[in-house]
């Protein structure tokens, strides 16, 4: 999977980044006191929801089935018209504008892609640009560009029909189609629900890569909490009637769940899930003494003792680690060989701490070698680094985040009010409901 990750700008992975990173092409969205009542139903499907969705972020809507998360999503592009309240996209009230015009400016991805079976891949992708009146040459160029973006060879796939594609490929084309007219907002309704687990992981990684490049505002409905933790900058956990139980970063939801409902929803293993939130690149790793094949072992040993390290990393001519030798092993050697050690504990720098810890536990060393692009050696990570990172993220989680977007039900909306107060209001409301 690591070969899919080509970009190396690690900082945008961090959810606590600055509020306006450069390159954001997304728009912020505001649901203002939105209520949806379906005819013939006693209780509203969405009840007085106020929610701010920051530009350029991935917001995951999760909750049990029938909680109103999909209704909430479909109210953003007004596939479902809200009964009350306002929808504001990029500062413009879109509640009363022409729904079709609004939807042409918002990407929409559904489960299994929702491709039209009687149209080729290229026609499917080109639908929205065509509606927007692009000329043919521009549409063709855009289709090819998008197919490249979702890792499909345009020459091979352009003229295929959806039934000639695998489930994962259909889903990719679905994403490409949603991105066709370069919309600022992408809505995804359980996008990866219909593909097998391995394909799902790949598609998730690719979505993260695409998002790193494009920085759209993505609102994604899922019932899979792990997916929410993996993809989300922010996670909104809904209870029945789209009651917002907690709206926060994955770190804080895992480290500091707002109430019992959220705790139950997270399920067991919150600590381990936290490990999947941090990547090796973000925790910093230590340097190591480096040697190369052909060197005299004694020279490397001398450098090792100088630096006070226990192990030396041997790299090949392209700086890829091939051996990891202890002082004792070096002492026994005359000249360092160029035979790669197949059991070398190596993790990519984009791997999660979860993967890194797993590698360390399997190897006896209690540490792992970190490699960067083209498998080049970058440094060493050990168990202590991982432990420190966990402690740090737990401490950070308890601290209030002043950048948390607003999200609450049936309350007064204060754009300027401190998040703490709003969070209290939200959880008070939840408690009140729980006690009823």
């Amino acid at each position: 999977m690591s070969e899919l990750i080509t970009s190396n700008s690690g900082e945008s992975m961090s959810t606590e980044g600055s509020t306006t990173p450069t390159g954001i092409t997304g728009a912020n969205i505001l649901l203002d006191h939105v209520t949806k009542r379906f005819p013939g139903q006693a209780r509203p499907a969405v009840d007085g929801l106020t929610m701010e969705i920051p530009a350029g972020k991935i917001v995951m809507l999760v909750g049990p089935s029938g909680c109103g998360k999909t209704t909430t999503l479909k109210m953003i592009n007004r596939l479902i018209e809200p009964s009350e309240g306002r929808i504001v996209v990029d500062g413009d009230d879109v509640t009363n504008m022409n729904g079709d015009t609004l939807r042409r400016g918002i990407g929409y991805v559904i489960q299994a892609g929702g491709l039209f079976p009687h149209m080729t891949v290229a026609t499917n992708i080109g639908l929205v640009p065509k509606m927007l009146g692009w000329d043919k040459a521009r549409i063709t160029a855009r289709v090819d560009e998008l197919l490249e973006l979702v890792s499909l060879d345009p020459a091979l796939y352009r003229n295929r029909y959806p039934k000639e594609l695998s489930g994962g490929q259909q889903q990719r084309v679905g994403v490409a189609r949603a991105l066709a007219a370069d919309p600022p907002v992408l809505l995804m309704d359980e996008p990866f629900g219909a593909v097998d687990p391995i394909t799902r992981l790949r598609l998730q990684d690719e979505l993260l890569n695409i998002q790193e490049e494009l920085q759209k505002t993505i609102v994604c409905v899922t019932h899979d909490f792990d997916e929410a933790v993996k993809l989300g900058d922010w996670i909104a956990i809904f209870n029945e009637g789209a009651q917002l139980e907690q709206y926060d970063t994955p770190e804080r939801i895992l480290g500091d769940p707002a109430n019992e409902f959220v705790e139950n929803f997270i399920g067991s293993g919150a600590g381990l899930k936290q490990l999947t939130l941090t990547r090796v690149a973000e925790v910093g790793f230590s340097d190591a003494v480096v040697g190369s094949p052909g060197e005299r072992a004694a020279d490397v040993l001398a450098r090792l003792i100088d630096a006070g390290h226990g192990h030396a990393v041997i790299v090949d001519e392209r700086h890829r680690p091939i051996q990891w030798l202890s002082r004792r092993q070096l002492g026994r050697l005359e000249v360092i060989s160029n035979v790669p050690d197949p059991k070398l504990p190596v993790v990519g720098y984009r791997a999660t701490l979860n993967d890194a810890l797993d590698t360390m536990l399997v190897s006896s060393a209690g540490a792992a070698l970190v490699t960067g692009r083209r498998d080049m050696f970058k440094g060493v990570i050990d168990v202590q680094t991982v432990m420190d990172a966990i402690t740090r993220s737990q401490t950070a989680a308890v601290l209030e985040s002043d950048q948390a977007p607003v999200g609450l039900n049936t309350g007064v909306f204060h754009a300027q009010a401190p998040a703490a107060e709003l969070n209290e209001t939200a959880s008070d409301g939840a408690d009140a409901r729980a006690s009823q």
Partner: protein
Amino acid sequence: MSTRALTAEAGIAGGDSAVETPGDPAAPAVPASQARAVWQSWRGLVYQLAGILLAFAALVIWLLTTNLSAVELTTLAPAALWIYTVEHIQLTLLAAAIVLVIAIPLGIALTRRPLRFLTAPVLAIANVGQAAPAIGVVVLLAFWVGFGFWAATLSLVLYAVLPVLRNTMVGLQQVDARLIEAGRGMGMSSTAVLFRVELPLAVPVMLSGVRTALVLLVGTAALATFVNGGGLGILITTGVNLSLTPVLVTGALLVALLALLIDWIGRVVEHVARPKGL
């Protein structure tokens, strides 16, 4: 006589059943097998046409070699037969055109949101109406609107509207709701979704309804003669009334062959018009 009719039937039946199997040609990757797949998908149609032509040839040979009485010879004069056939086809096509103009828009309208509540009751009525005997409809209507070509056309329309209406509605209903939602979700208007997504995906079912209607019409048009509507039915009634077996058989066979020919044309159209990728 009966043996010939049977062979004709068998040839036709063979052609007919072969049509069903290659309905869904697998998408071949290799050009060599592509040609075979094309042949596979057309094979049934070729057999059906061959069967029809063979049966027709057999009928002609039989008529030329049998001893026919003077009355039979006049009734079965090629010019007369041609006029009956043309009348029959006119009746059928006119009724079919009217049916399409009525049933397809009606079927679309009945599956749109404001009228959707009517879909189920109308389908139920359509299914019941289909079971009503055609002769009853024809004669009852004749008493009401009078006899002649237009009375015959009206009853034919009433009878054939049902399969087209039903298949239009069923075809539109079976379009995956998620595809409609995907269309609306990307900003297509409901009209655009109807014409670019729903109707193309409903085409196979709709066309098969049209074909059924046409075949029904060819058969039912033989009854038009009871209300003085013309067509090949006159041969059958004459044959029965005057005990002229060759006339009766010729009339029946011509109607049957015409129905099969229309069915064949319908299948060819379905085959060609089926959207790619389905």
